[in-house]
C-alpha cells in the first residue's frame, strides 16, 4: 500500500522501525572526503529522514553493511574457538534500484554458490530493503543498459516529493505503522531512471579470446592498482583472511576477513612466491570480464549493475563503461567466435 507522508510522519515511521532495526542510509559526512573540505557520502545508521542524502549517489556502497570491510569471525585461545557476535539488531538498508539489483549478485555469490556463507547469511536474513526512488541518472550511471533501473522486490520505498514523502510498503508487518503515520493513501510508483548519458554495449561473441587483445595494454601504465574501483563496487565480494595473534600473548588471537581487491598487489600471490596477474592491464582484464562475462556464464546474468561508482572514483579517470565499449573492437581484433 502506498502513502503520502509529512517529514514528521516519515520520522515517526523511522522511530518505530528503530526499535527493532538499525536503519542504514547514505549520509553526507562533512570533511570526510580525501581532499580537504570535501565530503564523503557513505552508509551509516540514521534516526531521521533529514540525515539521508537523497540528491547524490553514495561514494561507498551499501554492501559494507552486509559484508563489512573488516570483520572478526571468531576468537581463538589455545584449545577453544569462540564465534564473534553478529549484529545485535536487524537492519534496514535504504538504497537505489541498481544497488538493490546488486543484492541479488551478493546473494548469488554468498548463498547460492554451492556453499552457504554462514557469516553473510546471519546478517542477510535480518535485513530489509527500502528503495530510494531515483529520478535522474548521475554522471556515470548506465543502469538502463544493464536493466537495473527498475525493481519490484523491495520491502518498502521512500522518495521525496516536494515538501512531502511518498512511501510504498510491501512488507505486511509495517502496514500499521505506515497507516498510522501517513497523511493519506495513494498509489505509489517509485521513480526510476529511463535514460542515462552513458551507454554500454556488451558485444555478442565475447569469449576469453579477448584476453589476447591489445586493448588491455594501455591500462598497464594508466592504472595505479589502488583498488578503489573494487571497494566502491556494490557487487565485488572478494575477501582475504587474516589471523591475528595478540602481541601480549602470542597464543591467542582472532581471525578476520577483510575486503580484497583483484586490482591491488598480492591478490594473485601463491605459495612459493608466484603472482599471476602482475600487469595492471591484466588485472583490469580480469575485473572487466568478470563483471560482464565470467559471472554471467556461470549465473546467467551480468554482475555489473551499471552504478558507475568505479568511474566516479577512479583517480586516473579510467572509465569502466568506456572499457566495456572497447570490447567490440577487441572481439574483432582477436577474431571472436560466437559463444552466446
Amino acid at each position: 500500500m502506498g502513502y503520502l507522508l509529512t517529514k514528521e510522519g516519515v520520522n515517526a515511521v523511522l522511530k518505530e522501525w528503530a526499535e527493532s532495526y538499525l536503519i542504514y542510509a547514505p549520509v553526507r559526512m562533512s570533511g570526510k572526503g580525501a581532499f580537504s573540505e570535501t565530503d564523503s557520502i557513505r552508509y551509516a545508521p540514521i534516526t531521521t529522514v533529514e540525515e539521508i542524502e537523497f540528491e547524490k549517489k553514495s561514494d561507498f556502497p551499501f554492501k559494507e553493511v552486509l559484508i563489512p570491510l573488516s570483520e572478526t569471525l571468531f576468537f581463538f585461545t589455545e584449545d577453544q574457538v569462540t564465534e564473534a557476535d553478529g549484529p545485535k539488531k536487524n537492519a534496514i538498508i535504504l538504497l537505489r534500484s541498481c544497488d538493490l539489483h546488486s543484492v541479488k549478485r551478493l546473494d548469488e555469490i554468498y548463498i547460492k554458490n554451492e556453499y552457504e556463507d554462514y557469516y553473510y547469511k546471519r546478517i542477510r536474513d535480518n535485513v530489509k530493503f527500502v528503495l530510494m526512488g531515483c529520478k535522474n541518472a548521475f554522471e556515470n550511471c548506465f543502469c538502463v543498459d544493464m536493466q537495473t533501473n527498475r525493481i519490484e522486490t523491495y520491502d518498502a520505498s521512500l522518495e521525496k516529493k516536494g515538501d512531502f514523502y511518498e512511501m510504498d510498503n510491501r512488507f505486511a508487518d509495517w502496514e500499521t505503522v505506515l497507516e498510522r503515520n501517513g497523511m493519506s493513501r495513494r498509489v505509489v510508483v517509485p521513480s526510476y531512471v529511463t535514460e542515462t548519458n552513458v551507454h554500454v554495449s556488451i558485444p555478442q561473441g565475447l569469449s576469453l579470446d579477448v584476453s589476447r587483445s591489445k586493448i588491455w595494454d594501455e591500462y598497464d601504465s594508466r592504472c595505479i592498482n589502488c583498488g578503489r574501483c573494487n571497494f566502491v563496487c556494490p557487487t565485488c565480494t572478494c575477501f582475504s583472511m587474516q589471523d591475528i595473534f595478540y602481541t601480549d600473548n602470542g597464543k591467542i588471537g582472532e581471525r578476520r576477513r577483510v575486503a580484497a581487491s583483484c586490482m591491488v598487489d598480492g591478490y594473485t600471490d601463491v605459495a612459493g612466491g608466484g603472482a599471476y596477474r602482475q600487469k595492471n592491464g591484466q588485472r583490469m582484464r580480469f575485473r572487466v570480464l568478470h563483471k560482464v562475462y565470467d559471472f554471467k556464464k556461470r549465473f546467467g546474468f551480468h554482475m555489473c549493475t551499471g552504478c558507475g561508482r568505479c568511474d566516479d572514483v577512479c583517480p586516473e579517470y579510467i572509465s569502466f563503461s568506456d572499457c566495456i565499449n572497447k570490447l567490440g573492437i577487441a572481439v574483432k581484433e582477436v577474431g571472436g567466435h560466437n559463444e552466446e
Partner: protein
Amino acid sequence: MDMNTKALKKNAFRVTKQRGVTASRIRVPGGHLEAKYLSVLQEIAEKYGNGTVHITSRQGFEIPGILFENMPYVNELLQPIIQGLNINQKTPGQGYPAAGTRNVTACIGNRVCPYACYDTTAFAQRIEKVIFPNDLHFKIALTGCPNDCAKVRMHDFGIMGMTEPQYDKDRCINCEACVKACKKKSVNVLKTVNYKVERYPDRCIGCGECVLACPTGAWTRGEKKLYRLTIMGRTGKKNPRLGEDFVKWIDEAGIIKIILNTYDYVTQHIDPAAPGGKEHIGYIIDRTGFEEFRKWALRDVQLPKMAEVSTPIYWQGVKY
C-alpha cells in the same frame, strides 16, 4: 624637482633608476584575484606606465615607467583593486597607506590543489586584514601542505597546512597503500602491525598522503585546521637561511596572535639606526637571543593541546 621619497615609498611606489620615474606596486594578498582587475592594471600600464607589467616575486604586480606627477591619477585608478581586494586603507583614492609589511603570499591552496589542507588565499587575506597597513618589514607566506610549494621557509613567518590523520581501523583492509605512500612520498611513520596500521604521531608531519592514498576512506582528515609555523627564514646578504619550526600543530588564532606579538617585539627591539627603518626580524632575534623573542611571541597565546613548541631554535644557513 622636489619629492619626498619616504612618502612615495610608503605609498607603495618605488624610487627607480630613472629620475622622476616611479613604479606602482600592487599587493594581492594570497596571490589570487578576480580576472576583471587585470584590465585595470592594463589601463594603468598603458595610460601612465610604459605599457608593461611585472609579476613580482611576492605575487603582486609592479607597473613601471610612471612619471612622479602621475602618481595621484594612478592611485585613483587603483581604487577599485584596493577596495576589491579588501585592503585596509586610510583615505580612498590615495593609494596604499604603507609598504613595509609585504604582500602575504600563498600557494594555490585547496581551491584547486588536492594536497592542500586549507584555503591558503582566504587565510592570507585574513592575516593581511590584521597586519596591514604597517611600516615594519614583515614577510609572511602560506602553503597548503608540507610540500611547501610557496617556499614559506624563506619567510619571516611560514605557515604550512597540516592535517591530523584519523584512522578508522574497521575500514582498513591492509592494502598498505598508505604505508607505501608515507614511506616513498613522506616521512615513513606508518607501519603494519597485525594487518592494521600504526602511526607514530611524534614524527608525523600531517601531509595527508595517507588520506589521499587510502582507497576505502579508513584514513580521513582531522576536523581541526592545524598548521606548522616556521619562523625567521630569509634571503638577503649577511646570512640567508631557511626558517625553522616554531610551533607544530598550531591553529589559526595562535598564528595570528604570534604575528601580532612579533610586531610589538620588533617595535621594542628594532635597531633605531637601522637604514630606512628596516631590519629583518631574524637579525633582531640574533641580537636579542631567541628566548627574548619567544617570551614576546607567545604572550597570551592559547595553543591547542597537541601543539609542540620548539625551543631553543638554532638557525643554519649561509654566513658571510
